């Protein structure tokens, strides 16, 4: 019985960890292609969730259409931010760009509060609600389906990243920008592509997170844990984002149940400290020094 409980708690943690992983992948895509540490990721995620809320609840569109529009809106947001705010600053001191992304996060929170007010909301239910059992272990349907969706999205993304022309261009730019230019790759377009993709992934993660935990203008704080995930996994490693996302989700869930909810984030930051002391470049990251 104890083991069954442990198993259930672990499954719950992995389910939530998938959302960390999904958002972390968006973070890594931007970092790999443009070397920008985007602290507005949590707020981009929030904006995507609110777009879905606006389309599905506000305009009462069918859920599938709201979903598509919110994902497109997320992508457009990413593209717009890159073109208007980030590109003029590329090549500048990383701390300038870093600070601008902090400012951006504030702007996005403000926008959401102006458009939708800061009143806490629930997203319309769109995930199946029949209880799921794996063996004897109960998994909350929202957790299960958000895990499945996150896994499929990440899978599709990995395939694109590996085989699609745009994905190859993205990887080429990430490994050597000069060489990519020389080979005729349109590097500015790759920048746009990475922000657009990340915007879409973040919107998707926001919708899933919102359906699990509700939406509010404060939900961007989720991005802080994701930042820990990408630092632990390695800022430029997609594999690192996946592994660290699941791992931190699992540890938080265990800490919450066996130590108490007040220890969840404590454990997350202890992991961060240990990793920073032993492997500052992350578990799977490239070993190089980024000075901020």
């Amino acid at each position: 019985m104890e083991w069954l409980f442990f198993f259930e708690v672990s499954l719950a943690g992995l389910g939530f960890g998938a959302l960390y992983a999904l958002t972390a992948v968006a973070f890594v895509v931007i970092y790999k292609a443009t070397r920008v540490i985007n602290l507005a990721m949590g707020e981009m995620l929030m904006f995507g969730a609110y777009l879905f809320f606006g389309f599905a609840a506000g305009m009462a569109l069918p859920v599938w259409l709201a979903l598509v529009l919110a994902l497109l809106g997320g992508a457009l947001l990413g593209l717009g931010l890159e073109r208007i705010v980030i590109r003029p600053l590329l090549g500048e001191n990383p701390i300038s760009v870093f600070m601008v992304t902090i400012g951006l996060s504030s702007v996005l929170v403000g926008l959401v509060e102006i458009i939708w007010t800061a009143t806490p909301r629930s997203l319309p239910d769109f995930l199946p609600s029949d209880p799921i059992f794996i063996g004897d272990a109960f998994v909350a349907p929202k957790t299960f389906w958000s895990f499945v969706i996150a896994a499929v999205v990440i899978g599709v993304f990995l395939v694109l990243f590996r085989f699609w022309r745009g994905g190859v261009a993205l990887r080429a730019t990430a490994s050597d920008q000069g060489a990519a230019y020389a080979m005729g790759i349109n590097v500015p377009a790759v920048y746009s592509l990475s922000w657009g993709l990340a915007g879409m992934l973040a919107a998707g993660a926001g919708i899933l997170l919102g359906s699990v935990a509700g939406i509010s203008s404060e939900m961007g704080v989720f991005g802080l844990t994701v930042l820990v995930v990408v630092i632990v996994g390695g800022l430029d490693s997609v594999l690192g984002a996946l592994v660290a996302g699941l791992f931190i989700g699992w540890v938080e869930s265990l800490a919450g149940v066996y130590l108490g909810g007040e220890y969840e984030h404590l454990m997350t930051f202890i992991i961060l400290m240990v990793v920073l002391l032993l492997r500052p470049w992350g578990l799977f990251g490239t070993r190089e020094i980024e000075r901020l």
Partner: protein
Amino acid sequence: MSMKIRTSRLLFGVASGLALGGLVSGTALAQDQETTVGAGAGEEDAIVIGGSIPMTGVFAFAGLAFNEGMRDFVSWVNEEHGGVNGRKFRYVGQDTGYDVDESVGVFQRITSREDVDFYFGDSTAFSQTINSELNRRDILMTGASFASELNNPEEYPLQFLLGPDYTEQVGILLDYIADEQPGARVAFVHSDTEFGRDPIAASQERAEELGLEVVETLVTPPGASDISGATLSLRRARPDYTIFHGYVLAPIPDFIERSRQMGMETKFMGTYYSMDQTIIDEMGEAADGFMGVMPYRYYYDQEAPDTEILGAIHDMHDEYKPTMYIQAWLAGVLLREIAQETLDAGKELTGSNMRETLDSMENIDTGGIIGVPVTYRGSSIPVGRIYRADMDEGRMVPVSDWIELE
């Protein structure tokens, strides 16, 4: 040379980041967002109510209701009663964005240009921060917070609460449970915030005193977080009643939904700030049967007799008004009573004089807002009633009489 350019661009980047942040987060906008109603600024004997009101930010849903309630009260009391002894009320409220520094700034601005008699605060942190300043300026204050810590006339002599403090709110729930199901198994679920922790330790003791069994106390981290593990722990504890505190909406609906999916039959309860009809509506289906403590009558309360205040509110508004709106009216009604009695006793409207008046008042008639006459004990009114969400009727219905703690 190039170093210079880099530095200036760096500064530009930093400055533009900060500027973008400042633009929307509110300091520039906040100062403009002021509500003034009632007696003119020039009227010397006006009774002035100042307010640090969160009209933007995460607490705006409550702040906007406070602001409207206070505004309506002042218009009503001036028109219907000519104020108090011919002295008209004036209300000046400014937006704080629910930020303590801004709340203090608003307090300083309003009190420096107006001769403020009463003040309305927006948070526990503000109440704590401004306490010594209130004492120095001798201003009486009430507000949005029900923090147990504030219910202490020695530490906070010039502050009083608009109902039961959080410990008393949970106390009222526990009284109800002990009455309904003696020896029931109770679980607490609270957020890991000052707000969430407030009543927990005292309530655990109180539950034991009432012969209830506290089977679990769960803490959830602040912000959008995963509650899967917590719901599994809750299932293991098999409580008859689960009391939430320290939340407005999330994660309550999710908790209820998951517990039902696991076949649990626990009854869920909440405290004041998760009990407004607009919040219950957001909970959707999950809200059915959700219970909680409410110190005031709801706007639509059909049991309410035809009383002066609820009647006045209905005359002004055909549509639902949130409980925070009613709360602001209660503040107004109490301030009027306090001012009336203080002036009748031939005293000036200083904070200490009015506090003496408040302490001497008994069986105050709140004009129907609270169903029984109330007397302050300490700095709170330990009275409330249990309501249950009835989804068929689409509203909260009372399931207990008014409960007054001993």
